[in-house]
């Protein structure tokens, strides 16, 4: 016999205990920003209407320095969890992408600022450390 009976039972129970209670969740807000559409915006020529047809209506419109600023965002959150009988680990990692299109007084795109962080979102369970 490879294992004594009680040891085999304990191994089975431990295996079941260790593999149950795993949860993997993912949540997003908005749609991912398409980089081809963003690169199609040409400073000094693309109009507000063209930006809307390329990317869609902005999530927010901000006014700054007497100019209109379109703000698009996308959030991505990944959350693995281990919910055991007596011990629970839950971690969530959320990152955001932001796109700003600055328009001049004539409604022509003047500047485009884009930052992508969601590519670095990870399913990380271990809650300790960085």
């Amino acid at each position, binding site marked *: 016999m490879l294992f004594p009976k009680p040891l085999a039972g*304990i191994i089975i129970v431990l295996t079941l205990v260790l593999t149950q209670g795993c949860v993997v969740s993912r949540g997003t807000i908005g749609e991912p920003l398409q980089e081809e559409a963003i690169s199609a915006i040409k400073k000094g020529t693309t109009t507000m209407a063209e930006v809307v047809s390329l990317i869609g209506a902005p999530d927010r419109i901000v006014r700054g*320095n007497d100019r209109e600023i379109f*703000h698009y965002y996308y959030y991505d959150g990944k959350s693995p969890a281990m919910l055991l009988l*007596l011990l629970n680990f839950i*971690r969530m990692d959320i990152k*955001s992408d*932001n796109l700003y299109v600055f328009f001049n007084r004539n409604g022509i795109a003047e*500047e485009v600022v884009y*930052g992508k*962080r969601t590519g670095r979102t990870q399913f990380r369970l271990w809650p300790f450390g960085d």
Partner: protein
Amino acid sequence: MTNVATRSIFSACTIGALGLTLLWTGCTVRRVVFNDVVTTEQVNFIRIGQTTILELADHIGAPDEVTESDFGVVALYNWSDTKSAALDFGALARLVLPYAPTMTLNKTGITPEQFQVVFDPQWTVRAYGFSRRTTDEPVVWFWPF
């Protein structure tokens, strides 16, 4: 001799597993990390009156929010590291009782942080600063008092 050795290993493993189980009983550790931390080293390159919003975005990414203030347009970078730990003394009862009483100590530390940059009308940096800096707290700290 082999049986005795097997038995003592089995006993040691059982006691070890029980010890670990008792140590971990009812522990819940949660952590929610939002966006990347912006450090003072990362923003050392900023020169008042010279650095533009584009250069800023090249170095630390696009801000999470742009808003207008009395001093000019402000770009906000937000991040947080929320740590929460709980210890439920009633969890052990789940092993033997159909109903587990709840006797929980829980502490949650939400630490939203912000880096703010104020721009002049030419979109160059007029001022910048961190809203506040918190000291690192341990991930597991359930004592709420």
